[in-house]
């Protein structure tokens, strides 16, 4: 019996979750929910785990309209057994986009994840978490979030290339 993630709380509402449902219209305003966010963390990378959990209340404040679920280490292990290619890459923030546009044009996009396990230094991971949060807030009304992920987070395209070169030269200095 896996250890429960948290003590039962009287204030948490009952949740009916369907991650594969047909997408509803995208949020017309900042108050509507768009994402289900899951933190998968086996404790593999202790320093990064501690960093993420320390900043969870702040993360919650920025994403109050979304649902944030924290998996216990046992639950995380069970999940990662189903996708062994991600073992060692946690902590992972898994974001299901409830308004994902269907079809091949968007390569059956359903969401995206932030894998923090590859970072050795907490400062690097924190920088990516902050970037991730900025992105979620800035683009939560976007019709095709997968396009924005590729353009902004993956730095694709000419503008992305310029950003990469600027970041690289800043690091060199």
């Amino acid at each position, binding site marked *: 019996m896996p250890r429960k*993630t948290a003590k039962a709380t009287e*204030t948490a509402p009952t949740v009916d979750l369907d991650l594969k449902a047909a997408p509803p219209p995208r949020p017309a305003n900042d108050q509507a929910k768009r994402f289900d966010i899951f933190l998968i963390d086996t404790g593999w990378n202790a320093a990064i785990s501690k960093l993420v959990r320390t900043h969870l209340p702040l993360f919650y404040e920025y994403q109050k309209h979304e*649902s*944030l*679920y924290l*998996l216990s280490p046992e639950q995380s292990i069970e999940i990662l057994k189903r996708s062994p290619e991600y073992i060692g890459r946690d902590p992972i923030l898994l974001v299901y986009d409830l308004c994902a546009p269907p079809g091949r044009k968007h390569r059956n996009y359903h969401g*995206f994840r932030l*894998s923090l396990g590859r970072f050795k230094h907490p400062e690097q991971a924190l920088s990516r978490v902050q970037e991730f949060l900025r992105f979620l807030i800035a683009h939560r009304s976007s019709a095709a979030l997968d396009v924005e992920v590729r353009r902004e*987070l993956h730095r694709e395209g000419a503008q992305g290339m310029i950003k990469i*070169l600027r970041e690289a030269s800043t690091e060199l200095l």
Partner: protein
Amino acid sequence: MNEEISIMPIIVGALAVLYFGYEVDRRRHQLRETFNVFDKQESTIAQALEHLVESGQLKPYVPGQAT
């Protein structure tokens, strides 16, 4: 002699362009690894997560509760 000197900047410039191209590609690969888009292949994980939530083993996080 003069011809050899004029070729050097071209070679250095070409090497610099190659290096930047390599660096851009390397960093993009790292970013794709970090911010990874997923598709319907995640349906197995989605089923497992849905089960955890619907069975009450997983509840939305609220600050102040123990984790």
